[in-house]
């Protein structure tokens, strides 16, 4: 139990400080470490859940209120779930704090010297440099999630339709999720 809590804390504290471009960019590493995917490389495989659970938890967190990265709460919850409800909640709390507190400290302290850099051309350089990296990371996250979750043609079509609606209209994504969930439940069961 203590080992699991510690593993949760270390994993998310590390990811907290590398989530350049928002929490979603660290999904591939979170997936890799939380799910058993590579038996030949067991050091960081905690086997807390299977692929399906990971994808489902991700979807639940996207549909629920809160910052986009509440999936960490669910991963912590699931990791400690075998040890009982109280420990599971503790796991969820540890995961959430580990994900959000280190990056918040960074914002707090960096805010104080940020203004000194206002006129430095390097500020633009760093921002220009981080954008493509973030894009690559989001692309990797999208690829991992889609690969693990979309197995049938109807869900693939729904995903593409959702993408088009997202790019060209201003329909609320949560509304789309609700509609897609009901359609899928009604026709794909």
């Amino acid at each position, binding site marked *: 139990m203590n080992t699991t809590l510690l593993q949760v804390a270390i994993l998310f504290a590390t*990811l*907290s400080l*590398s989530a350049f*471009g928002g*929490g979603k*960019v660290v999904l591939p*590493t979170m997936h890799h470490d939380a799910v058993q995917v590579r038996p030949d*490389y067991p050091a960081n495989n905690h086997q807390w859940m299977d692929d399906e659970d990971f994808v*489902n*938890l991700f*979807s*639940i967190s*996207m549909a629920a209120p*809160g*910052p*986009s*990265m*509440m999936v960490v*709460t*669910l991963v912590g*919850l*699931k990791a400690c*779930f075998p040890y009982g*409800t109280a420990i599971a*909640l503790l796991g969820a*709390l540890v995961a959430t704090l580990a994900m*959000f507190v280190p990056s*918040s400290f*960074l*914002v*707090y302290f*960096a*805010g104080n010297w940020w203004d000194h850099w206002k006129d430095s*051309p*390097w500020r633009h*350089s760093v921002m*220009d*440099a*981080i*954008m*493509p*990296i973030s*894009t*690559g*990371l989001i*692309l990797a996250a*999208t690829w*991992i*999630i*889609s690969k693990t*979750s*979309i197995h049938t043609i109807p869900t693939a079509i*729904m*995903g593409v339709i959702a*993408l088009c609606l997202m790019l060209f209209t201003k329909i609320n*994504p949560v509304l*789309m*999720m609700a509609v897609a969930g*009901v359609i*899928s439940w009604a026709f794909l069961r």
Partner: protein
Amino acid sequence: MLQLAGLFAFIGLTSFGGGITAYIRRLVVTQKRWLTDEEFLPGLGLVQLLPGANVVGLSVYIGNHLKGPLGSVVALGSLLICPFISTCALGFLYFHAGKTADTRALLAGITAVACGLMASMVFEAGEKAIKGAMDIFLIILTFALVRGTPSFELFDHRIPTLPHLSVPIVILIVAPLAIWWHRPRPSKGLSSTDSGAS
């Protein structure tokens, strides 16, 4: 202070799926007039640059700006408390319901939209990121390192399989290259934003 807690609890409850910095700006700058745009926008730039969710970083920045360190703690805490409770509740619901045909079908639809949402973020981020061919290369390099690559033949040399590298390590590899490429170049103007194709 109570107002601060109330506002961020409200933001926490009403924000779905990310991408709500414009919404926060409207609440804090336009409606409440707690900050001016001159105070808000540098904070937004800062949290976009630093790791972590933008909403979370903004709550810390605004809380600190208005009420000091305690304000940061209050803003962050009230932002996360309601989503934390509701997310845990949904999690328990899912674990107890288990993977039945019903939950599978329902979640398959939600996941499909979530994938579409993620893909749309790739397009939005890519639009801002790509200023030249090098940016496309950086995107592909980052993607390949995170994903891992299968082994392939290149000029009669066997390139071995590359396993998934964790995101922190990928950033340590790609960031120096990217910053070096985008370094300030006086010959092309004040900053690298001016260089490259647009």
